């Protein structure tokens, strides 16, 4: 036992010595805590970010053919404008024989207000009603980053996710009107971000992040840090019960990728 604590302590120090600027992202690949999003961004440079995250069966979100399984989320995140980010997610339940490569999800996050100008960060997420319905969420949320001292920042996040979605009813459901309409998300087995959610994130020098949140279903804890300057690692403790993790990788788009340029810069 002593040995393992030592080992953890040493490896943690090692990991910390490799870290670079990063910001914590949630399991969908967006700026956020563990499962909830947040309206602020730390990394201002243009980048594209890839993430792989894992949810165990008890907390799985994809309910394809009314079955759940351990699942992986593959996501790509791009922020083409200062006020807009695009996130593409592919979910793959691991134990369900299924059609296709997984369900696809696309959402847009609008960064409406910024703390440096308005004192708070305000942001909204819109999921266009495409094929996968289990993860669609439309929400609005605020935060404010408060500096405790030089190295500590604390950021409370608070928001509301719509309990309904504007889309066509499920194929087998009995609806009079089969066109686009407001339908309760629970009809699709979707309980993700339905109602009020909130959380608290502690940011240590933009290097280490500690989060606690209520995501409308569970209370989760999470921590994230960066290794080898480019790889983000996050460990989460869902509902004080299940340990999960995620790994992300960033490519910066504002520097040259050409070798000839590097020779003469």
């Amino acid at each position, binding site marked *: 036992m002593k040995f393992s604590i030592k080992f953890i302590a040493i490896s943690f120090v090692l990991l910390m010595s490799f870290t670079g600027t990063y910001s914590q992202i949630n399991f969908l690949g967006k700026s956020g805590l563990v499962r909830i999003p947040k309206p602020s961004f730390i990394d201002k440079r*243009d980048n*594209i970010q890839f993430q792989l995250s894992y949810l165990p069966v008890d907390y799985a979100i994809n309910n394809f053919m009314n079955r759940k399984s351990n699942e992986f989320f593959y996501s790509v995140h*791009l922020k*083409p*404008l200062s006020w807009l980010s*695009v996130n*593409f997610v592919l979910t793959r339940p691991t134990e369900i024989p299924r*059609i*296709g*490569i997984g369900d*696809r999800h696309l959402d847009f996050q609008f960064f409406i207000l910024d703390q440096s100008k308005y004192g708070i960060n305000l942001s909204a997420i819109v999921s266009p009603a*495409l094929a996968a319905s289990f993860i669609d969420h439309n929400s609005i949320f605020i935060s404010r980053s408060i500096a405790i001292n030089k190295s500590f920042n604390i950021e409370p996040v608070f928001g509301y996710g719509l309990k309904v979605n504007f889309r066509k009813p499920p194929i087998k459901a009995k609806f009079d009107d089969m066109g686009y309409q407001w339908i309760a998300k629970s009809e699709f087995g979707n309980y993700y971000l339905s109602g009020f959610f909130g959380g608290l994130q502690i940011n240590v020098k933009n290097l280490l992040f500690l989060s606690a949140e209520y995501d409308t279903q569970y209370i989760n804890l999470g921590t994230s840090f960066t290794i080898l300057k480019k790889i983000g690692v996050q460990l989460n403790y869902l509902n004080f019960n299940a340990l999960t993790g995620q790994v992300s990788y960033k490519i910066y*788009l*504002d*520097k*040259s*990728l*050409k*070798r*000839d*340029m590097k*020779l*003469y810069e």
Partner: protein
Amino acid sequence: MSKYILCMLFIVAFYKAYSQDINELKSVLSSVGFEQILVFPMSANEGEIVYRIGVEHRGINNPSEVLTLANSISERLGFEQNKFVLLYKGQPLYESRILDNLISSNNLSDTNTRDLFRKFSLNNYRLNVVIDPDIQARFGSFENPIQSKLSLLIGSDIMLFRGFSLFTGILIPIQNDLDNESNQIKLGPTFIEFFSQILPNHYTQLSLGLFYNNRYGIDLEYRFFPHSKRFSMGFRYAKTGFYYFPERSIFFDSLDDNLMLINFEYLFLKERISASLDFGQFLQKDQGFKFSLFKQYKNIEVGFFSTITKLGNNSGFNFTIPLFPGTFIRSKVFELRTNDSFRWQYSYSNEGVIGGDFNSNRSIKNNLRRFNSNLLNTY
């Protein structure tokens, strides 16, 4: 008499020193991948000779980087305040000058263009062999969720004369569970292509042969592209048919598919986003609209598109990226490298082809976009 000899000697020595400097500049530029380096002395500026230098670099997909690289090298060798003329397939586009890290560009005058034409030589090109993976994939089949076809295209743009090239290559199949094309090494896309600037800011490109995406025929594109303005427009007409390679033969479908598209494009400079609208007839007589947004990053272009046509709706994204690791071999006459602008597209719907297109990595609509001179200072 001795005065004359002295004078002659001085002139010869001066000329030799001058040409040596130029040769050094040319060889250094060439060693980092520049081709068609055309150097002209311009009017002497306060005793210093200033040069106009035509440059082309086929391995760097960002003209801003091409200019800064050429400028930093020539400044290092003592050539300052030069003007650079960007060439595309040996055809001059416009001239630029870098002062205090700011690139300013203007149109080239007729006499200067003729000068460049005079110095143009095919010997200034390398044989540029490009390794380019050809990835086609279809997702979502019940039996086989990821159907894919992977091949390696080893091809080259062989310049025949100014603006005129023959592209050809071999296609090495690696894996295929998408269609029933044979698994032999076969001829890659092979076509001739003629690019020219018919009037200042008016460009055309005519291609003929076996194209990408299993299309053969003729492809004509015109584009009005004022490099300093944000608006550009063009049209494209292509008469094509389908071809593929079954076992040990080649199959040609009839040549009766007309593609007729009009395009308008506007550049939002601050965001480096181009909004582009195509409408008309796509492949397979599919008529409708295609709206796209392209965002320019330093070496990467990311696009989102949405199509509404008679055959249905579709949307997706595409990207153009330089492939790792870049140049393998580079000598004076030969270069082997990976593609600097590999283009791939993902469509949400896989039910047939909606708003079908071909040869999109060769079209001047896509290739001139980066040459907007407003963009050069924004990266």
